[in-house]
């Protein structure tokens, strides 16, 4: 919703629905989650 549908447009965040297919959005989410797990493991 946030990336594709512009749920945070009112905060000035772009809407990337047309440029980002669902599998790319999922890949971004996986990358961010992986980074989160990394800092959780090393803090």
């Amino acid at each position, binding site marked *: *919703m*946030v*990336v*594709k549908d512009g749920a945070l*447009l*009112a*905060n*000035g*965040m*772009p*809407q*990337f629905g047309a*440029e*980002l297919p669902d599998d*790319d*959005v*999922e*890949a*971004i*989410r*996986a*990358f*961010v*989650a*992986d*980074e*989160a*797990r*990394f*800092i*959780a493991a*090393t*803090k």
Partner: protein
Amino acid sequence: MKLRNAFIIAALALTGASAPDEHWTSYGRDASEQRFSPLDQINVDTVAQLGLAWRFDMRDGRGVEATPLEVDGVLYVTSAWSVVYALDATNGKPLWEFDPAVDRAVGARACCDAVNRGLAYRDGRIFVAALDGRLIAVDAKTGTQIWATQTLDGGNWPYVITGAPRVAGKLVLIGNSGADLGARGYVTAYDTDTGKLAWRFFTVPGNPANGPDHAASDLIMAKVAETWAGEWWKQGGGGTVWDSITYDAALGQVYIGVGNGSPWNRQVRSADKGDNWFLASIVALDARTGEYRWHYQATPGDTWDATATQSIILADATVAGKPRKVLMQAPKNGFFYVIDRRTGKLLSAGNIVPMARTADTPKGAPISWAYGIDIKTGRPLENPEARYPGNTRVMVHPTGMGAHSWQPMAYSPKTNFAFIPAQDYAATFQADPQYQPIPNARASGLMPGGGIPQDNALRSAIAKSVHAKLIAWDVAAQKAAWTLDYAFAGNGGVLATNGNLVFQSGADGIFRAINAVTGKLMWTFDAQATAMGGPITYRIGGTQYIAIAIGNGGAHWLAGGLSSPQRKALPTGRVLVFKLGGSLVYDRTDTAPDPVNPPEPVTSDKAVLGRGAEKYGVFCAACHGFGGISGQVLPDLRRSPVAGDA
């Protein structure tokens, strides 16, 4: 490396339309933009008594980049979303607030947050440029709007405005931003009384098929177009005038600092040919008509986001025994230039960060885009490898964040030093042969960056490779007189005073007073956030005040989390004002980053994670941090529950 030249510059003095000693009436205090105040009550002997006098909290917590103004006892300052506050300059009492009600969706077009760097003043009117492109005149006493005009009618590009307008006689000038996303730059002058357009100057040529622009730039544009190739107009060409505009009353000129190309990569932008006037240049224009007079291009054929939009400071100088009117600038590209304002001729140059030939650079270290300046031609001596020809991938410095970014430098005629908030970043450049523009994403023409290896030792080493310092630059000698090292990049602008002090706020949130002659640290205050714009000073009723507007903002704080202190931004922007004997207690705010609650594993497939890192680099990193590491101004997605719902 020091560049030798035949000139000796000495005894520089204040010039241009000056402000009364006690006030700060324009962005750089007066038209010279020196950010030097003649006030000296706060000096090297008294500064230890400096304390907080009052504080004002803004409504919004987004980035603050403003330099305040002080006129007749009123302090004017802007916050994010172009909101203007008028405060009693002695005690912070709010007098009025002007909110231009910017549509928040416009923020999607802003490369580096919804920031605003400041205001202009003339004859009882405050001028603010709103993020959405309106230039607005406001009654300085009441905050009532007098007139407003939409300035973003120069083409269908993703423009915004974050810069401060400047007054030049009876005109008020403003440019805009957008070259990082793809835009065509221009600057426009409006009548201060009516808001009527007086002249406009485009900085790069448009599509030849569209004919002339019917602008002041038409007279020079055919010659400008000869320096471009290919179909440059498809992404606008760039060259936005997003920060520095300096008025020279003595010569009837204005100097505009012109930004980077759209896209960054000249191979894509201009078939890898031509100097691409007036990208990365200082252009002198007739202040009354906007007609071209001369230009100096610091980075011909820019291909590294090497803007020349940084502070343009005017001074009168004795050069080789002759009086000369000069300007000085330290653009992003790592050099410091002294230029004759009458002719545009380069008088001297020196590098403010280490620059070397590729052959003299240790293997594996970033290479310099240039290793010197030919003082006769004024052109850089480039390392050709730095242009990443073909499919090469090179680490180049200094790059996009700039050896000196927009944070204003100051100049003291007492010491003949320029005080430069300097830093040295390297970045990887490789052309993207498949590049296609994406709306609201970086127009770089480069291969997207991926993630940063999950190795804390390596990450620490990368962070430490970013060097930042305050440089006291001896203008005559073209070398550093002293430097003050910082642990992080993204430090604030500078104020110099007749009290032999310079003031600067660090990315660590510490506000500092430093001996202007020796570089000795004299006083500190833990503000918990950075004054990105410059501090100002003014005097009311015999008391000298120092004011800062704090709230981390700008490209470094959004994208450069790896080299930031990982401190969460304050809940709102603030104005802090100091005086000798000030005793207001400053309550501390918890700025620890949000806790980490990682979502369940989505996948451990390395190919998917790699693609995610690449797409994150294209769509997310500019605001949420390279490699997923936020500067803690906009949400750190690793710490956000939103990461579970993309």
